[in-house]
Structures are given as structure tokens and as C-alpha cells.
């Protein structure tokens, strides 16, 4: 018989006949593909959107000159003349503004509003055109170009050019005014032109604005400073060759670097975001692989009965094998077809959900703009095919091989093979070794700043868990059997039957349970980590928020943007009768080694007095001219404990500082250097804008009414000063809100894990039922009622889910410990107090058990419907 004909008769028809099983298997593969693709898309898309934002704003820049300490004095621009022989120079101010006309404050009572973010590029429009691809700039509707109109960008300090997309979205026209908030000040800017949707205009989905450099300096409060100078080299120079020469030609305090370096450093900004997604993606991958493996393996295993028939009609082993492998590929393809579009949708959802959890809403904006532009590339599809098809083949190979080599007598006698105690012991031993290896790996140092060994430890732990699964399964089955009459005397027979059934399928079930257990362990691990982190931060918040009120500009300072309070705000607050003291604080990015850190300055003495810092390492005794305190993450990231000294770039080149203390800071994982204002002034100059407050901690007279003070301050400032004026309680609530939304991701994770567990249980059982039809028929034959049969299967389902959860909790806690004590410390520099979220674990266990039971219902109903006579009838066939 020919292969296609056989395939049609024995595979396709069978698949059609067994619609439910086929559907579940294909859906299983599909869900796996969907989850995999979703996370891949989300990760890639966010990274790409981010890079695209950096790159398109960077334009044709061949290299970038910046201050060693970041922003630099504009007077140094004149000293760049020697560089001009290499190419074209363009000074740049890069800022962010919040779009809005209104009153952000109305929201501040119950939280921090999320405005629309605008990436503002301030350039010398006379110089910048060779550098950036402002492909088409329109300043008039009818004329293609109009000098007079374009020059209006230079005219006045509040002119702005916006993108076509932005204008359409906001229904604005050239000539209209748009209110923008830089820092705390809201001002109207006049739209002078339109950028077509090309080049930098594509940044942040059109939320890009072009301003003249002078206006940008004024608006972003950076008079006298430049963010960087972009260089377009003459074609005869190659960037790599010339970089060192340029470096030498630069005045002190300035450095040249490739534009990539900026995005490289900026990448650390999305690290936290990506970490969340990566955790999801690890789960997704394993779950996806499991689903696919399980679906195919079970589907093929279920067809053993047909092998005899095939062999009877003269199909050789090779034929049988290839038939089933083809079936596996067929299912994989159907699954991929279902999974790809589903993954696209899931990806958007994942990005949107995760976007809620990130520090800055710049990243959120990027994530959102990328969520809307997720697209499947050929590479994605190929990657999925390359993972799924071989995996499906692998999953099919074992049962298909068994099928091909099955002997008729085996079929008659039934398998009934139990895993030998020796094999069990061997697997368990390997599992323990693997756990030990994982433990050893946790002692490793990070490699290139990445906790690679930590991740390897996680893998070893998971492997250990998987290898211990057969033993766990065996012990649980035996245990349940022996205590069944105590447990549920009325159901003891069903429980025993279920346990025996499972023991009889130990090898195959071990694979399923191990995979389920590992996906559940991810859920547990992340829940433990997030829960621990939350508690730790709450503790920190309670101590660190000693002020009665915190005042910040509405456009908050973050890793990318800086926002300041106006002088007026400062005065209004300081002069309020109920205010006894204020402490101001400012921070900005500082390039340090190969990343960006936060350079912060404040009135350190008062800060210490008010006990706003919790120290990890020796509380400082005295602040000298050269001492700083650093955050724990800085200390860990750069291996700089208290007492050591560090070399920091300053506006004068670089200076050495003594680390006087290390404090906990969960507000940023970038690593912060906190300097007393006096020290800062000395090293960075009097004029540095950082000496203007970004936030203000306000202390009130004990008898003052906070609400009154707040409304008095807000009232005096009027609508043009956009600030948050929040109480410590509100800050705390806001921080917790962020955690809650992080938990939302955990819940999503939990949901996925439980769904997958349920589906895994169902597909495993459905397949087992096919395999055990004769046994089930027999059970019914010797007098088991339908109800009894159903119970047996549901109990099996619950046991499967339960053991998976057991493995999940065990491995999950180990994973969480590695996450908290190794990976987290190495990549974020945060100490988190380990805390077991008992409630979550109990709750998720109950959910898993319930879900397993519910998902077991369908196979149970099918089992009860098995014709009791099927087994005896076929003897006479």
C-alpha cells in the first residue's frame, strides 16, 4: 500500500474521527506556539522600538561627543573647532515633555497620572540638516518650501515642529498652540511645521518634536548646557579609525563615542522591563515545549491499537514509523497555523500588561507604541518551525517507535509495566546531583555583568526537579493508596484505582508531571520574588518617607528625562507658614564605566538628620569634600563597598571620591551616587542645573493640617505650575500600586500556568483513556458504575495536578531563592528579604487542584462513556 493512501486512511481519517483528541492536541501545540511567539515578539518588539527611537533620533551621526559627566557647558562647543576638520558638528539638546492642556493635578490625589510623552530634539536647525533625516519638513500647505515660514522656528522661544501623525492624532494644525510641560511649567508652544512620518518623526509612534536648540535649552531649563554634539564625518574618514584622534583633540571634560554607546547604556533602562518579560518567556518556552511534546506524544501513543491493523495489512516498521512521524508533523503544522496569530494577539497583551510595571513612562510609551506595531517576521515563523517541528518529531519518535515495534502478545497481555525501583532510584539520584550542582553554581560571580551562572543554576534546579518527579509521583501514589481509607473512606476504591493507574503509567506521566511542575515552579518563583520584593520595599518606604509632603514636577525625572521645580514653586513652599523645613533633591544620568548611573545631590546633612536613608554599610561619620554615599545597587554593580574610593567623571575631567556609606534605594536599580550639594558644587560647578531641585521633601509643623497646606500651596502656584504634591501615604500607595500591577503580571502568569496545567492534565488523561479503553471497559464490566469510573479519572486528574504543584512549589521556592539571592543581586544590586507568600501558594495550589479536577471532567465523562463490551466484543471481530 502506498504511503499517501495509508496516511489518508490511518492518520487523516483517524484524526478526523477523533475530533476532540485531535483538536486538543492541535490546540495544545497552538497554545505552546502562541505563548512562545508572544513573548518573543514582545521582547523583540520592545527592544527594537527602543533602539529605533534612539537610532532614528541619532540619524546619520557617525559619532557623538558628550561631557565626561554627561551634559556639558556650552562654552566648550567653541573648543571643538579642531574636530571640524573631520566633519560636521551639530549641538543637541534632547528632552522630554508631557503633552496636555490641563490640570494633571486633578489626578494627583489618587495617584500619578500617565500623560502622553513627547521626545523633543533641540538642534541648531541651521546646522543639523545633514545629520538627520527630516526627509520632508512642511511649513506651508501650498508651497513646497517657504523660507519665511521655516524661519519662524527660529523666531521666538516657543516654536515647535510636530509630526504629521501627532497632529492628526490630536487634531491640530500648523499655527495652533499645544501645551507642553517640561518640568513643572506648562507653556503653550506654537506649531510651526509638520514633519512627515519618516526618520526621527517615527520615534515613539510620532510623539516626536523638533525645536530650535535655543528654545529647547530654555524650555528644558538647560540654558548654558548641551547634551551632546553629533558629528557627521566626512566620507573619507572612518569612524573607527578616527575615534582615537578625535578623542585626543577634544578639550578636557569631553569624550567621543559611537552613537551605539548611547543606546547600549540606555538599554539598561529597559533591563527591568525585559527581565519581567524574560521570566515570562522562560515559562512560556518550557510550557510551550511541554505542550507540544505532550500533545504529540499522547496523540501518537493513543494510536497504538491501530498498529496491529497496519502491520496486518503489511506495513513494515519503517512505514509505521514514518506514518506516525508524519502525523506529528501534520499536527505541528496545524498547531503553528493556529498559534502564530494567537501569539501575535497574546504578545500585544503581554507588552501592554508589562508596560504598566515599569519605572518610567518613557519605557511604557515605547512599549505601548511597540504593542501596536507588533508584527510577525519570516524569522519568527522560521524560528517557531525550527523549534516545533523537530520537537514534535522527537515527541512522536518514542511512542511511534514503540508502536512500530509492538508485538501482538504485548497488546494482549497489556503493558502494566511499572518503573523499576532501580530506575526510579537512579533518576532520583541524578535529580539530587542536579540540585547540588545548582547550589554550587549559585556561588559563581556574574560574567560580564550578567548572572549567567545564576541562570545555569536555575536550569540545574529545574532539571533536578524534573528528575525527582518520578519518585515524587511514585511516593504520592503509594502514599495516597495507603491512606485512602483514612482520607476518604467512601472513595477509597476509586482513589486506589486512580493511584494504581498512575503508577502503571509512571514513565510517561513523569514526563508530563515534570513539565507541568516546572511551569508551575516558574509561577511560584516569580510570585515569591515579587512578594518578597514588595514586602522589602514597603519596609523601606515606611522608613525612607519621613517627610509630610513630597513635591515633584509633573513631568517626573526618570532615567531619560529630567524635570525641575521652578524657583517659584520652591519659594512658595518654603515660605508657607506651616512648613518648618524642606530638603531638596536632584538627580541626573552620569555615564560611568560602560553604563549610565544616577548622580544625585541633596542637602545631605539634613537628609541624615531626618533619617531619610537606611544604611546598609557603616553609617557615615563625617561628610568631607570628597566623600559620597552610594546606593546598594551601585555598590554591588561596581563592586565598591564602603571605604573604597571611586573615580567619577566631573565637569573638570575626573575626580576621586571616597565612599562613606552604602544605603538602600529601591527607587532605581541604576546605581546612585549621592553627593552633598556643597561637594557637588565644587566638582560640577555652581551653574549646573542639577542644583535646582527636582523634588522637595517638605516637613510641616506637627499641628499643621496636611490637606490645608497642600491646597494652599497648589492654590498659590496656580495652573501654570504643574506639580505633584503628595503625602508620604500617597507615595507609598503609589509604590504599592506599581507592585499590584506587577502582581497583575504574576496573575497572568498564574493564569497561564494553571491553564496549561489543566490542559496538560486533560490531554494526558484523554490519551491515557484511549490507551486504557479496555481496562475502563473491564472496570465497568465487573460492575463499576459510570459515576465510579468518572471519579477514578477525576481523582487521577487531581493527583496529576497535585504532584505537579508539589514539584512546582518545591522547585519554585528554590528558583526564587536563586532569583533573590543571586540573580537579583548580581543584575540589579538589590537586597530583597526572602519572604514566602503562603497565601499565594495555598491559593494557587487550590486553584491548580480545582483546575485539574475540572479539566479532568471531560476525560472522565469520556471514560464513563466507554462501551463496557468493547473489550470483549473485539475478541470475536
Amino acid at each position, binding site marked *: 500500500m502506498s504511503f499517501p493512501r495509508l496516511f489518508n486512511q490511518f492518520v487523516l481519517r483517524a484524526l478526523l474521527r477523533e475530533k476532540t483528541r485531535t483538536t486538543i492536541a492541535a490546540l495544545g501545540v497552538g497554545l505552546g506556539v502562541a505563548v512562545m511567539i508572544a513573548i518573543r515578539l514582545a521582547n523583540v518588539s520592545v527592544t527594537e522600538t527602543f533602539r529605533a527611537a534612539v537610532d532614528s533620533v541619532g540619524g546619520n551621526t557617525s559619532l557623538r561627543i558628550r561631557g565626561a559627566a554627561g551634559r556639558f557647558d*556650552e*562654552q566648550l*562647543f*567653541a573648543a571643538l*573647532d579642531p574636530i*571640524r576638520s573631520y566633519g560636521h558638528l551639530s*549641538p543637541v539638546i534632547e528632552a522630554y515633555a508631557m503633552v496636555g492642556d490641563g490640570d494633571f493635578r486633578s489626578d494627583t490625589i489618587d495617584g500619578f497620572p500617565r500623560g502622553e510623552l513627547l521626545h523633543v530634539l533641540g538642534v*541648531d*536647525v*541651521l*546646522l543639523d*540638516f*545633514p545629520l538627520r533625516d*527630516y*526627509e*520632508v*519638513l*512642511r*511649513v*506651508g*500647505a*501650498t*508651497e*513646497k*518650501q*517657504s*523660507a*519665511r*515660514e*521655516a*524661519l*519662524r*522656528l*527660529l*523666531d*521666538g*522661544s516657543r516654536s515647535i515642529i510636530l509630526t*504629521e501623525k501627532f*497632529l*492628526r492624532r490630536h487634531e*491640530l*494644525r*500648523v*499655527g495652533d498652540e499645544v501645551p507642553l510641560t517640561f518640568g513643572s511649567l506648562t507653556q503653550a508652544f506654537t506649531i510651526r511645521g*509638520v514633519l*512627515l512620518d519618516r526618520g526621527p518623526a517615527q520615534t515613539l509612534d510620532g510623539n516626536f518634536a523638533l525645536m*530650535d*536648540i*535655543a*528654545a529647547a*535649552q*530654555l524650555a528644558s531649563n538647560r*540654558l*548654558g548646557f548641551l547634551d551632546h554634539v553629533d558629528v557627521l564625518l566626512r566620507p573619507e574618514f572612518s569612524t573607527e579609525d578616527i575615534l582615537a584622534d578625535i578623542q585626543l583633540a577634544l578639550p578636557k571634560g569631553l569624550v567621543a563615542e559611537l552613537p551605539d554607546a548611547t543606546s547600549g547604556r540606555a538599554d539598561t533602562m529597559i533591563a527591568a522591563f525585559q527581565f519581567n518579560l524574560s521570566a515570562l518567556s522562560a515559562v512560556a518556552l518550557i510550557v510551550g515545549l511541554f505542550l507540544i511534546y505532550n500533545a504529540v506524544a499522547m496523540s501518537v501513543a493513543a494510536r497504538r491499537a491501530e498498529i496491529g491493523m497496519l502491520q496486518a495489512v503489511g506495513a513494515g516498521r519503517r512505514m509505521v514509523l514514518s506514518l506516525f512521524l508524519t502525523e506529528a508533523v501534520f499536527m505541528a503544522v496545524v498547531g503553528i497555523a493556529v498559534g502564530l496569530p494567537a501569539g501575535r494577539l497574546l504578545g500585544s497583551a503581554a507588552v501592554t500588561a508589562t508596560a504598566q510595571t515599569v519605572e518610567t513612562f518613557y519605557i511604557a510609551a515605547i512599549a505601548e507604541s511597540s504593542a501596536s506595531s507588533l508584527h510577525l517576521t519570516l524569522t519568527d515563523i522560521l524560528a517557531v518551525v525550527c523549534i516545533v517541528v523537530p520537537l514534535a518529531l522527537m515527541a512522536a519518535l518514542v511512542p511511534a517507535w514503540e508502536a512500530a515495534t509492538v508485538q501482538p502478545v504485548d497488546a494482549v497481555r497489556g503493558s502494566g509495566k511499572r518503573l523499576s525501583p532501580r530506575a526510579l532510584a537512579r533518576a532520583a539520584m541524578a535529580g539530587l546531583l542536579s540540585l547540588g550542582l545548582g547550589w554550587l553554581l549559585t556561588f559563581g560571580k556574574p560574567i560580564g555583568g550578567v548572572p549567567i551562572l545564576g541562570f545555569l543554576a536555575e536550569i540545574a534546579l529545574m532539571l533536578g526537579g524534573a528528575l525527582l518527579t518520578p519518585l515524587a509521583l511514585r511516593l504520592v501514589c503509594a502514599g495516597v493508596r495507603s491512606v485512602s481509607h483514612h482520607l476518604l473512606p467512601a472513595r477509597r476504591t476509586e482513589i486506589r484505582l486512580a493511584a494504581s493507574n498512575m503508577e502503571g503509567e509512571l514513565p510517561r506521566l513523569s514526563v508530563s508531571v515534570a513539565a507541568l511542575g516546572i511551569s508551575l515552579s516558574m509561577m511560584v518563583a516569580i510570585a515569591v520574588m515579587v512578594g518578597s520584593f514588595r514586602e522589602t520595599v514597603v519596609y523601606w518606604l515606611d522608613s525612607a518617607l519621613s517627610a509630610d509632603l513630597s513635591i515633584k514636577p509633573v513631568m517626573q525625572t526618570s532615567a531619560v528625562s529630567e524635570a525641575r521645580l521652578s524657583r517659584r514653586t520652591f519659594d512658595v513652599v518654603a515660605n508657607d507658614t506651616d512648613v518648618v523645613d524642606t530638603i531638596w533633591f536632584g538627580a541626573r544620568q552620569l555615564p560611568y564605566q560602560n553604563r549610565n548611573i544616577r548622580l544625585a545631590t541633596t542637602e545631605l546633612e539634613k537628609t541624615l538628620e531626618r533619617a531619610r536613608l537606611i544604611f546598609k554599610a557603616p553609617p557615615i561619620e563625617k561628610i568631607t569634600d570628597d566623600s559620597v554615599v552610594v546606593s546598594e545597587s551601585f555598590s554591588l554593580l561596581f563592586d565598591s563597598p564602603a571605604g573604597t574610593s571611586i573615580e567619577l567623571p566631573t565637569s573638570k575631567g575626573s575626580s576621586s571620591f571616597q565612599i562613606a556609606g552604602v544605603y538602600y534605594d529601591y527607587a532605581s536599580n541604576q546605581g546612585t551616587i549621592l553627593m552633598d550639594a556643597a561637594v557637588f558644587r565644587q566638582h560640577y560647578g555652581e551653574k549646573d542645573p542639577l542644583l535646582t531641585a527636582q523634588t522637595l521633601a517638605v516637613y510641616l509643623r506637627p499641628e499643621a493640617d496636611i490637606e490645608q497646606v497642600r491646597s494652599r500651596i497648589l492654590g498659590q502656584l496656580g495652573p501654570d505650575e504643574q506639580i505633584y504634591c503628595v503625602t508620604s501615604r500617597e507615595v507609598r500607595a503609589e509604590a504599592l500600586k506599581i507592585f499590584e500591577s506587577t502582581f497583575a503580571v504574576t496573575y497572568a502568569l498564574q493564569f497561564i500556568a494553571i491553564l496549561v496545567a489543566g490542559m496538560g492534565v486533560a490531554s494526558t488523561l484523554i490519551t491515557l483513556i484511549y490507551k486504557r479503553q479496555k481496562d475502563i471497559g473491564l472496570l465497568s464490566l465487573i460492575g463499576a458504575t459510570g459515576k465510579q469510573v468518572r471519579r477514578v479519572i477525576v481523582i487521577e486528574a487531581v493527583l496529576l495536578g497535585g504532584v505537579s504543584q508539589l514539584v512546582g512549589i518545591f522547585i519554585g521556592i528554590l528558583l526564587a531563592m536563586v532569583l533573590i539571592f543571586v540573580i537579583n543581586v548580581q543584575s540589579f544590586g538589590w537586597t530583597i528579604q526572602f519572604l514566602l507568600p503562603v497565601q499565594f501558594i495555598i491559593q494557587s495550589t487550590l486553584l491548580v487542584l480545582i483546575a485539574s479536577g475540572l479539566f479532568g471532567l471531560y476525560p472522565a465523562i469520556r471514560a464513563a462513556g466507554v462501551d463496557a463490551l468493547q473489550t470483549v466484543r473485539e475478541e470475536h471481530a
Partner: protein
Amino acid sequence: MLRTTIFSLSLLLLGGCGREPVDTSDALTDLFPIHASPAAMTSHDDWTAALSPRAFAFPGDHASHEDYRIEWWYYTGNLEADDGSRFGYQLTFFRTGLNKEPNNPSKWAVRDLYTAHFAISDLRGDQHYCFQRNSRSGIGRAGAEVQNYAVWNGDWKAWLDGENHRLQAGESELRIDLTLSPEKPLVLHGERGLSQKGAMAGNASHYYSFTRLMTEGTIRIGGKNFKIKGRSWMDHEFSTSFLEPGQLGWDWLSIQLDNGIDLMLYRMRRDDGTTDPFSSGSLVRKDGQVKHLSVTDFRITPLRDWTSSATDATYPLDWKVEIPGLGYQLVITSAFDEQEMTTNDTTGINYWEGAIEIAGSSAEGSVTGRGYMELTGYAGQGLGALFE
């Protein structure tokens, strides 16, 4: 003086950056106000108008006049190396006031736009090189001193060194470093230096020239330094407004004759093809005495057209000049054709500015000479529209 247009044209750079524009204007019309108001970019009221002759005082008046909106310093000349190689050069600094009192304390705030043109004509191989710069003052990037004459745009600069004018400019491998000494006193054009450009009061400029500057220095071209000698012409003109609707372009000639006489002539062309009545000229005698020429005092007639392959613009390159009252009959020939100033890659503004040869006769006999010629309004749209 009418060279002003060129820098004004250069403002166009803001609009197009020279790339092939994608015509999507139709799709975008909804983003613009329905009635686009052609409001002036800056009110001229803020600036001082050239209404009456000025009491010039030198050397102070060589420097910048910041109360006026428009000002330029214009150097052209014919140079000759020891080996007989001949070159022409042009170095021009423009200042255009955009916003007399910017409400932004930033150093980058633009009060004035500084534009500069630099060109060299290499008569050995008929090669013409031209460059343009547009700058704001920024951090000392460009500027014009108000006390002691010095004007610069990047490393292109002109300044006064005693009586002498010093010029330095370089771009790529081309470089000039020149010292210019007046052979004649400076000349005030028009009515005591007030040169009327249009019918309206205030549409005029303060305008003077050094018509004959002995020039020495070096020119670097093709990797080689030449010690050169020659003769230059300098114009300095400042005003607030001058062009009027209907004025299309102009032909401007500076002529230095061997007999010691210098001649400046310009013809303003109207869009109806006629010569504008405010066309004029000056004849500077050997002793520096000036005779003002009105539109009726001279006649210039194009003799030969040349079409640029770069811009498709057709320029009249050879001319017949007649000043009947003084007995001059001159034939002007371009030193070579290809001396078009093209700024396609930046502003898209094109004009012809180059070295010329003069031959002919005066009442005293035959004369020859050299000079510079500027032809504008032959490529592109009507320029007057830019100066409403």
C-alpha cells in the same frame, strides 16, 4: 548691493535641505490653517530704516550696524600668481536680523542669521569652486563686531588691520589668506551713501565701496600654495528693507580699468522685462572722485547667452556697456562660462558670479580691465516675492 538677494535666498535652506522633495503637500493641506497668512517673519518696525544720508565715520562704520536688519561685506577680486596663473575670488559675509530682541537668554537664540559665500575661479583650467555657510552666532561661531571691524563665519573671516583688510577663508583643500590695501579712498554710492532701491521711503541702503584694493597673499589650490598679487573690490551695505514687488533680479558689474577708473553698474530687471528706474551706477576716477550714474546715464546690452547644464538657467555672459555721456564703449566677457554659484545641495539657490574681462574704448582711447559680475534672478522663482 543687490547681492543681498543671494543670502536671502539662502534662507530657503530651511525649507528643503536640497533633497528631492516628496510631493505630499496635497495630503497635508488639512494640517495647515485654511488661510495661510503671509505674515512677515519679523516686523521691520523694530529696525532702523535707511531714510536719509548718514554721517559716516571710519573706521567705526566698517563694523556691524546692529540696528539695521540687513548688512553685508562683499569682497571680489582678480589675482595673479608669479607664474602667471590667474584666479578670481569672492568672499561675502551677510548678516540678517531675524529678531532684534530675542526673548530667550540662550546663547543659541538667533538674533541674526549669518550667511557667507566663498568661491574661487581658477582661470587656468576654467574651474569654479563655491561654498556656503549659514550660522547663528551661537558660541562664537559667527558674528560681526560692532566696534572694530571684524566679521566671521566659522573660520572664514575678514577684519581690519590698520588700513588694510585681511581675509581668510578655507574649505576642503581651498584656502585664501589675503591682505587688501586701499589704492583709492572709499566711495559713497547714491546720495552721500544712501542708495535708493525702490520707490518707497526706507527701501534704500547705506552703501559704500573700496573700488580698488591692492591685494597680496597666498591662495592654496590643488594642493599647491601660490603667492599672488592682484586687485580687489569691497562693498559694505546695510539697510532694513529694499526690494519691492515686481523686482525680479539684477545684473551687477564691478569694473577696474587699466586707466585707473573704476565702474560699478547695476541693472534691476522687473518681472515685466523692463529695467527698473532704480538701476544705477558709479564711476570712480583715478583720484577717487565719484560720478553717480542714473539709469539713463548708461546702457547695457547682452551679447551672448550661456545655459548652465547644472541648473538649466540661461545667463547673458557677454555684454556691451555704453556710457554715452563719458564716451565709454566697453565689451564685457566672462573669464570663463562656468562660474555659476550653485547651492543645490543646501539651498537650491543659484546665481552667476564670476571674473570678467573688459575691453573697449573711452574718450581718451582704448581701455582694458578686469572685474566681477553678478547675475541673479535667472534661475528659480521671482526673488522679489521673498522680500514682501
